[in-house]
């Protein structure tokens, strides 16, 4: 059964056709990678999933419901969580607080005027956040201000924040960009664990083929705003069209 169904999506920016006629289906409980050269429209496509952009044409269905016209927080409440290319966290807040906010969103919905009870009384939230912190291996840093962490840690925190919500679909935008090899491997391990243990459907944009082939079960190659091929990793490797798209070689 498909978790996310993208039909005939097109998006234009002025004179530039960023996406045209994109059809894509992400199956439940798979890791689906979207790759392609720079400017292929990967991030634009992702932005159409989370309400940051509204496509000019086509439809995006998630779990049987259209996401178009919904605002980001509504889409998130449907079950889509996103990790950004540059980590988006609450830099002025502590790591624990960063973890707690998605827990609140999960428990209370998009708005709850909970203005009088102390945070320390929210036992269930604290417990939930602590478990995820433990999973992310960050329990010892819980009281640090988030902005002071390394980029790798910020990324892990952001992934952890998404996991707090037990999303149905996790969108990852270049999660290892700018990471050292060791950190990248750690991230791969983490994501594999998420895939295996938590049964979360994952869509990932990635340049690093090592990451892609370690994780993905399906791969869509995007070039110049439309899907070139979609197949298993084995078949994508050495696919002539892919080579052409990446290297500009004609076959």
């Amino acid at each position: 059964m498909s978790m996310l169904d993208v039909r005939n999506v097109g998006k234009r920016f002025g004179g530039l056709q960023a996406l045209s006629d994109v059809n894509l289906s992400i199956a439940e409980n798979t890791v689906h990678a979207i790759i392609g050269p720079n400017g292929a429209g990967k991030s634009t496509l992702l932005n159409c999933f989370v309400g940051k952009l509204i496509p000019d044409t086509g439809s995006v269905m998630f779990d049987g419901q259209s996401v178009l016209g919904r605002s980001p927080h509504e889409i998130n409440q449907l079950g889509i969580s996103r990790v950004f290319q540059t980590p988006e966290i609450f830099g002025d807040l502590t790591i624990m607080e960063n973890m707690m906010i998605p827990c609140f969103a999960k428990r209370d919905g998009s708005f709850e005027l909970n203005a009088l009870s102390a945070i320390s009384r929210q036992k269930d939230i604290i417990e939930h956040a602590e478990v995820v912190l433990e999973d992310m291996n960050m329990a010892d840093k819980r009281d640090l201000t988030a902005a002071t962490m390394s980029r790798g840690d910020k990324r892990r925190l952001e992934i952890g924040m998404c996991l707090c919500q037990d999303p149905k679909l996790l969108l990852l935008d270049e999660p290892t960009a700018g990471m050292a090899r060791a950190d990248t491997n750690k991230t791969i391990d983490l994501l594999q664990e998420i895939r295996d243990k938590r049964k979360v459907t994952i869509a990932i944009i990635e340049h690093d083929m090592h990451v892609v082939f370690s994780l993905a079960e399906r791969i869509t190659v995007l070039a110049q705003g439309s899907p070139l091929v979609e197949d298993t990793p084995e078949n994508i490797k050495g696919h002539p069209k892919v080579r052409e798209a990446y290297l500009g070689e004609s076959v």
Partner: protein
Amino acid sequence: MFGLTKTDFNLLLIIAILVLLAPFLLNPFPEGSKLAQFNGGYPDLMQRFVIFGIFAIGFNILFGLTGYLSFGHAAFLGVGSYSAVWMFKLLSMNIIPAILLAVIVAGIFALVIGYVSLRRSGIYFSILTLAFAQMSFALAYSVLTPITGGETGLQLALDDPRVLGIQVTEQGNIPVPSLFGLEMRSSAELALGPWLFTFNVGYYVCALIMMASFYLAIRIFRSPFGMMLRAIKSNQQRLNYTGLNSRPYTLAAFVISGMYAGLAGGLMASMDPLAGAERMFWTASGEVVLMTILGGAGTLIGPVLGAGMIKYMENIISKINSAILHEWFYWLPAGLEDFMVAVVYPFIGKGWHLTLGIIFMAVVIFLPGGLVEGGQRLLNLIRRRKSSSAEPAKDNLTPPA
């Protein structure tokens, strides 16, 4: 206690002690001494300290937590004052209905203005709030004169209906605001040697309400709601992609802080039953911004300190005139006396604006965290002297880590 952590409770306790003992603390100099000029412990100024403290605490809930800089908050204070005075005119001189109406009307006003203004952020939001407040001022001063009293302000008259109270006192005067017969202006005095301390009913009413407001602010700061507001300031985009709708959060903060302003306005009218349109002028909105930043935005106690400092300058420094200066320096040789007076004179009395401007600049340049940061630095310095341990001191005034 009261659902607060130990640190917060201590902070509340400190505030309570400061506020309750203010009549002593603000009058450190004996009557008749040269320094008595600097005493601030008379009812009107003490009332102003706590009333503007409430205003600034409320403003800080919006600005300090969410980072939304409203440049029109004085409008809510003005609307609160007008509501309260109308209550005195129509219903009775009891301050309870007046203050309640002030808070409610200011809240509704804030809801409407906030709903529109919060569609934009950053400086666009600031300008929208400024525009609404300036419109309120301009209309209140001119075409709305029948409702607001215009230039002279809305004041009580002998022929007001006051359906639940007396129209005129036995002596033929307008009755004064009271709390079930306890007049706001009543005072008792305590003379200790040359010292004189005044205890005013109105001040203690304001002080109790201010402590309640401060307590409420602590609860808000420490609540999930407060955390969400800080998250909005930190990264609104992340909040939205985390499934939270920032708009109702900011609107709630806006309305709450508007109600604080209304409360301050209602109290102001209760202490002195006249409401002038200048209270809504943009400089009045600017003043509360300055109070908050001067004290330390986002800290609990900062805005209260900032409010106190500015009101002290306005009321004490502005009253020093050249005759008093000559009195200070009378012991110097004649030439030197004149020289000293000439040097100091531009900064006091009618020059108090200059001193205010210089202090703002100095604080912003050297203490970006406001007076609270200054206090912390001082504290750290002392601690470092005491123990050579290099462990950085934890600040207990800013929201806890």
